């Protein structure tokens, strides 16, 4: 059975359907953009200021 959720935007009122995909579920946990993640980690490591409260 398809698992479907409808979301309505708080900003625009637009409604979109999200359907859980078993094909996508098989990719869970895999890092799909490793270079981008590495770059983000590098940027965050260099931070001299803490995250805002």
């Amino acid at each position: 059975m398809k698992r479907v959720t409808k979301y309505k935007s708080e900003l625009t009122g637009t409604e979109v359907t999200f359907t859980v995909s078993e094909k996508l579920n098989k990719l869970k946990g895999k890092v799909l953009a490793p270079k981008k993640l590495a770059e983000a980690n590098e940027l965050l490591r260099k931070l001299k200021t803490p995250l805002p409260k």
Partner: protein
Amino acid sequence: MKYEVYKDIGVTDDFSLFEFFSKGKNGAILKRVTFTRTEDGRIYNLAFGDVDETDDLDDYVVTDNGDRNKVLATVAFIVEAYTRRFPDRWIIFRGSTQERLRLYRMAVGLHLEELSVLYEIWALGDAGIVEFCKNMKINAFLIRRKKS
């Protein structure tokens, strides 16, 4: 802010991956959006791009499918849904190229007032984390849902 969005989106049950089809002059192109935990466990990296023939995410490809605003609005919608489910998570994002970072900066700047109703919008710059303002030179965005 009223842009068309793609209304059928595939998702994992943990909301870490999303997919939708861009439909335009070059046909139907599968897009993927991922949120991956960074070394700082409070921050998740947003990556977005086309799904290539090996089922990997290619965030450097230029699709030119004639629907840029609709695709960006769909990604913004996904961010809204994601942060509704995980309101305490920070999202870091930037473009894979300077041109894309400039595009995102312009898009956020153009809608800053409306977006600020929902999000705290910060910029990672050479000086550290500062509140984002229009036309600011930045390395990445850092956003989080405002506490209600």
